[in-house]
């Protein structure tokens, strides 16, 4: 049930649809995570898990945290977000706190986000709070189910979708949209975008520069069997593509949208007869002093790097430099199956959906 008082959030969770090429449409969101946040809270409210004055907890400081913070404020819930000191900047924290969220930033000596420490703290809060509610964006089916609305918007705007490109972090947006689109378009080809040293598609964990996609833990909402190709994009090409989106299309988006756009533009060029859609999760304001700041950028070793027009195809999954873009043919397999063939040294086919079409 939605009261008119909070209904303007619908505009924030509705993407602008921008034509980037004759066969490429971008769904550019102001704040995409409102879609799953709202769905999860609505469902919890209607089944009684979430009561008046409940205390909501989540381990995020990203855009899902912002989305829950906006909804919690509008609906009078208390909210605590547990994050790591390496993942949150002072201004974003101040904005979350101004909305009314309590932000706990834990130490992160290894620089990998300290997810175990965050989960431990979250459990402590839940144990103390009889009316505590954990939104569980990583595992709640509400996360992927919410994206039927994106599938719906894409169909109304462009009809048949042949290829879908999107980043994977929790798995909600890409796997949700893909699963609903594939129900009606069984031939849909799904391109997942991740970054080097994220464990989601079998890389060893490590320090990552590009935040907002990738993960050090594996959320249940990542459904590998939906994915045809996986692309790992480093931070530099992602930043550079984000700049290009602003320059060439007037789209001021975050760096993960840059990573997705890089892959999508390649897919659209490689498959000129296919209708391609790409998901862009949020705007660039949060990154004004980093990704969109020349001073910050010029301090990066080797910045800028050479522009890339195509990925390097891997037959063995391995991390690469932040200047690199690699690709691997996943072929709708489970993570276990892929890791097994990798361990056995079997070489997968080097020709993918793109070359076959």
């Amino acid at each position, binding site marked *: *049930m*939605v009261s*008119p008082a909070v*209904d303007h959030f619908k505009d924030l969770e509705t993407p602008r649809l921008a034509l980037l090429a004759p066969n490429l449409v971008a769904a550019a969101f102001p704040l995409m995570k409102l879609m799953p946040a709202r769905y999860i809270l*609505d*469902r919890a409210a209607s089944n009684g898990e979430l009561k008046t004055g409940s205390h909501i907890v989540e381990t995020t400081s990203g855009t899902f945290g912002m989305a829950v913070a906006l909804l919690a404020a509008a609906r009078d819930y208390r909210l605590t977000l547990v994050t790591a000191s390496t993942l949150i900047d002072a201004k974003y924290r101040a904005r979350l706190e101004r909305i009314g969220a309590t932000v706990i930033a834990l130490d992160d000596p290894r620089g990998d986000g300290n997810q175990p420490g965050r989960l431990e703290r979250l459990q402590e809060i839940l144990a103390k709070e009889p009316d505590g509610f954990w939104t569980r964006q990583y595992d709640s*089916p509400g996360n992927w*189910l*919410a994206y*039927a*609305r994106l*599938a*719906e*918007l894409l*169909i*109304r705007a462009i*009809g*048949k979708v042949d290829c879908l490109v999107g980043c994977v972090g929790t798995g909600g947006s890409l796997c949700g949209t893909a699963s*609903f*689109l594939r*129900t*009606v*378009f069984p031939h849909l080809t799904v391109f997942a975008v991740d970054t080097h040293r994220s464990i989601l598609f079998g890389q060893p964990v490590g320090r990552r520069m590009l935040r907002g996609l990738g993960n050090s833990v594996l959320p249940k909402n990542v459904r590998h069997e939906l994915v045809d190709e996986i692309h790992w994009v480093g931070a530099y090409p992602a930043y550079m593509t984000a700049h290009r989106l602003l320059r060439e299309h007037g789209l001021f988006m975050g760096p993960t949208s840059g990573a997705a756009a890089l892959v999508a533009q390649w897919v659209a060029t490689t498959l000129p007869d296919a209708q391609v859609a790409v998901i862009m999760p949020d705007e660039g304001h949060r990154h004004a002093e980093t990704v969109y700041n020349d001073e910050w950028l010029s301090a990066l070793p080797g910045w800028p790097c050479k522009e890339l027009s195509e990925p390097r195809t891997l037959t063995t999954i391995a991390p690469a430099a932040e200047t690199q873009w690699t690709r691997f043919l996943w072929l709708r397999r489970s993570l276990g199956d892929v890791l097994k063939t990798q361990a056995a040294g079997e070489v997968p086919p080097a020709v993918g959906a793109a070359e076959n079409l």
Partner: protein
Amino acid sequence: MAEAGDLMSRGALPSPVGTAIAIAHHGELIQGVFKDDDGRLHRGLVTLPIAGLRSEARFDRSDGDAVVVTPDHKIKAAAAARLTLDFLNVTGGGALTLQSSIPVGHGYGSSTADVVAAIRAVAAALNVQLRPSSIARLAVSAERASDAIAFDDHAVLFAQREGRVIENFAGSLPPLLLLGFKANGGVPVDTLQLPPARYDSAEIQEFGVLRALVARAVRLQDPHLLGRAASASAVISQRHLPKQGFDEIADIAERAGACGVQVAHSGSLLGLIFDLFTPNLKRRAALVAQQIRRAGFKDVEVHLVNAEGWPW
């Protein structure tokens, strides 16, 4: 409704007799639960109208209070006539006569066609115009759940138990050829005995996607998108009112290059949707009809939908 009376008194002397028709349908393109603009869920459907089968009603006004219906078992149509008189603030009753070519119990909407024809005949006898939305609302009052046949070939997402439009698709369905037939040995289904289907969260979310397909199909007159919506809704319907041999039909449809498979969600009808502009459609449809008969289905028929005098 005082307005209606005023209008009448100003108009010509109303004829005491009104006649009207209503067409049948071939079940639903999609059926499920759908969100309104406020996020509330409503049961809803998109009807697939077929103009070839129809119900005809005649209403003779009389001064007596009673509405007398022939044949006398069509009590829902009689109730609809009574409700229409009340809605228009008219005293008296009349004789309602119905004649229908629509088979009963398979999902052709025979009873709604009677009800809608009756409502229209009463309005005609009173020389009053009724909007499709009012006719649809009266039909739901008369028979508890109704379909969207009051809108004729105009495509709407209709809340069949509330009598209101959830989404107006602002146009008619694309022209198409429908190869219709009956499953389950052609045994009729008593729709009133069916409990309303319980859908899970994933199905409820998927219905939004199917509704988007119908909207796009109507806007661009694309039978292929319409077929995909129908097929997906038919697959969901299998969990609630299974049709024997459905998988075999889905195979035949795929091999024949059909746009999709459509089912009556509370009846025994199945249909294969074809793009009317497919080359050699007549010969292909005849071949597919043969395969369907061989697979044991009954009463294979060809219906043209929005075909505008297409030669057949």
